């Protein structure tokens, strides 16, 4: 009951004109980002973040959150109309969506994906409110030892669950930890890796890293070639699927919500994995799996519902434990720190008004998005006619402004460019940048909790295994590592045998 009372309180905070306006702005930007290929939600959030410096955290985070789930709505439009996914979680939507569009059912596909996203988004937000608040209450018992083990587990989960190549993901994470040590250390106040550069004394701002490795690197990759997209035309009256279609997809939407929300509560999974899993689930429960790939409506409804519910799922560890569940929530987490908030269980105690207002705003954001994504889809789709060559110089200018805004200096712009080059080649070499970003944010947290835990235990490392919660978390890391290690060895063995045959 407490949750409902708090949520109603959240509505009273967020139902003001500026907050609704920010939710609408975020939804609009998110839909645009989702529709336009070449820039993902994490990069856009990172680019916009410095511009929100000095703003009140509630409207700023309301905007960033609605941008995140707005991108999930918008991503399906390009997948369906041009077979080019606007962002990675809509890749799977293109399989069935584009086939439906070719059969003249683009409106049905777009409508179903918007309706699925809406229901899953609302269900996901309700689940987020209940789960995050209870988890936060439980994690209030955590001391420094538990926090250290939790952060460590969060990092390993991100690698093991989300990483395609474990070694490269681990290396990316360790490099991120190294970047996190740049600046004045927390123990003796000594400068590390600063070499007399005063701008580095405060450390490397995560905004710089994320704008370089996500923002500019993504733009560079998209700008490699002249991109011209010609979307299919959709009429407004075609956009509303029949009630029979919606009724037919009801279980697919529900399954999508379950898969998306609960999978993404585990750090590292993210909406892309959720949408692929949901597609797999739909195919396996279908009575006609052979028709998948030819334009099956539940093949859109499931994954699209799933990627929206995944956004709420990924916010559970971020709000309750201060651990980001995906690249975009890492940006959001960094944003919370930037606004002077303390992500984690204390957020529900110290800034309860803020948390509940943001959660309540997600209901409003979803309502705004269903309005934007049904009648306004033809207008948004026409954005695809703007050549990408005209868009990316503007994005680069905003990145420069964003980097400059971090400390009102050009040093940060230069640093961002260094990260942009690194990010571009990392993308090309298949090295994920998300673990590096998460480690940069969580590294100092980890160092601080290690310092505090050992200080309290007078230097005894046993504190980590004597405390039951910490010991459990560390056991999970060991078990996960064993599982991943054994799987890797078996995989290598199988590959060798196959090669020998």
């Amino acid at each position, binding site marked *: 009951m407490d949750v409902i009372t708090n949520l109603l309180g959240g509505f009273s905070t967020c139902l003001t004109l500026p907050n609704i306006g920010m939710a609408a702005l975020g939804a609009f930007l998110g839909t645009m980002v989702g529709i336009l290929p070449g820039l993902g939600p994490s990069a856009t959030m990172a680019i916009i973040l410095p*511009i929100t410096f000095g703003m009140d955290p509630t409207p700023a985070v309301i905007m960033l959150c609605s941008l995140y789930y707005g991108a999930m709505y918008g991503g399906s439009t390009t997948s369906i109309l041009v077979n080019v996914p606007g962002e990675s979680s809509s890749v799977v939507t293109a399989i069935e969506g584009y086939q439906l569009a070719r059969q003249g059912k683009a409106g049905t596909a777009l409508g179903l994906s918007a309706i699925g996203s809406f229901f899953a988004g609302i269900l996901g937000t309700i689940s987020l409110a209940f789960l995050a608040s209870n988890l936060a209450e439980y994690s209030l018992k955590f001391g420094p030892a538990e926090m250290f083990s939790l952060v460590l587990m969060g990092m390993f989960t991100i690698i093991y669950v989300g990483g395609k190549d474990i*070694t*490269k993901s681990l*290396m990316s994470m*360790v*490099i991120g*930890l*190294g970047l*996190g*040590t740049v600046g004045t*250390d927390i*123990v*003796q106040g*000594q400068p*590390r*890796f600063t070499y007399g550069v005063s701008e580095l004394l405060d450390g490397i701002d995560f905004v710089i890293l994320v704008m370089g490795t996500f923002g*500019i690197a993504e*733009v*560079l*990759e998209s*700008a*490699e*070639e*002249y991109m011209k997209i010609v979307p299919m035309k959709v009429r407004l009256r075609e956009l509303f699927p029949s009630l029979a279609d919606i009724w037919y997809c009801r279980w697919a939407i529900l399954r999508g919500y379950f898969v998306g929300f609960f999978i993404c509560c585990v750090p590292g999974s993210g909406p892309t994995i959720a949408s692929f899993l949901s597609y797999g689930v739909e195919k396996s429960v279908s009575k006609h799996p052979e028709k998948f790939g030819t334009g099956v409506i539940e093949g859109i409804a499931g994954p699209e519902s799933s990627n929206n519910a995944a956004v709420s799922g990924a916010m559970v560890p971020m709000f309750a434990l201060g651990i980001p569940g995906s690249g975009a929530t890492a940006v959001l987490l960094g944003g919370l720190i930037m606004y002077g908030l303390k992500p984690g269980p204390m957020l529900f105690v110290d800034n309860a008004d803020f948390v509940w207002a943001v959660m309540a705003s997600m209901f409003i954001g979803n309502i705004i998005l269903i309005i934007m994504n049904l009648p306004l889809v033809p207008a948004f789709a026409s954005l695809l006619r703007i*050549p990408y*060559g*005209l868009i990316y*110089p*503007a994005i*680069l*200018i*905003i990145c*420069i*402004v964003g980097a*400059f*805004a971090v400390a*009102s200096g*050009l040093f940060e*712009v*230069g640093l961002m*460019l260094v990260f*942009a*080059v690194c990010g*571009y080649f990392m993308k*090309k*070499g*298949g*090295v994920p940048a998300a673990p590096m970003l998460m480690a940069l944010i969580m*590294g100092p947290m980890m*160092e601080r909790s*290690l*310092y505090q835990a*050992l*200080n309290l*235990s*007078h*230097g005894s490392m046993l504190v980590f295994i004597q405390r039951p919660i910490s010991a459990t978390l560390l056991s999970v890391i060991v078990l996960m590592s064993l599982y991943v290690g054994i799987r890797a060895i078996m995989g290598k063995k199988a*590959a*060798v045998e196959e*090669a020998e045959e």
Partner: protein
Amino acid sequence: MKKADRIFGVIGLGLALWSYLESTRLQYMTEFTPGPGFFPFWVGVVLALLSIYLIIDTTIRKPSEKDNKKILPARHMLYRVGFIMLMLVIVRYTMPFLGFPLTLTLFAAVILLLLEHYSILRSVVYGIAYAGVTWFIFEYMLSMGFPKGFLGI
């Protein structure tokens, strides 16, 4: 991909060495707690181990389908990327002399003209529009304090 992985391994090894060397000039432990050198030391050690593993793995593993894929794009694409990066670096170093609006107008106009093949007029108009709108919002309205050039803006 194999070659790229090996290069990444070597870069990782270099970074590991850098982190280790930095840790040697810092205190490793205080009486009870880790000192400032503790994290850089372990970052160096773990990164070195992972890098060595990656290098060995790329040396002994049989090339897969993924390994045969080219990781860098065609030369003309790489030129485009290189040109954009060069322009960004020029922006970084010329902004203190030319000022924010002029630098960014030139930046956008040159990219549109040379890479996207717009006419001179359209490139300049778009450049002025991009830089003008950004300058108006962030300098005029939000007073962000961008560098001023010889024009005084």
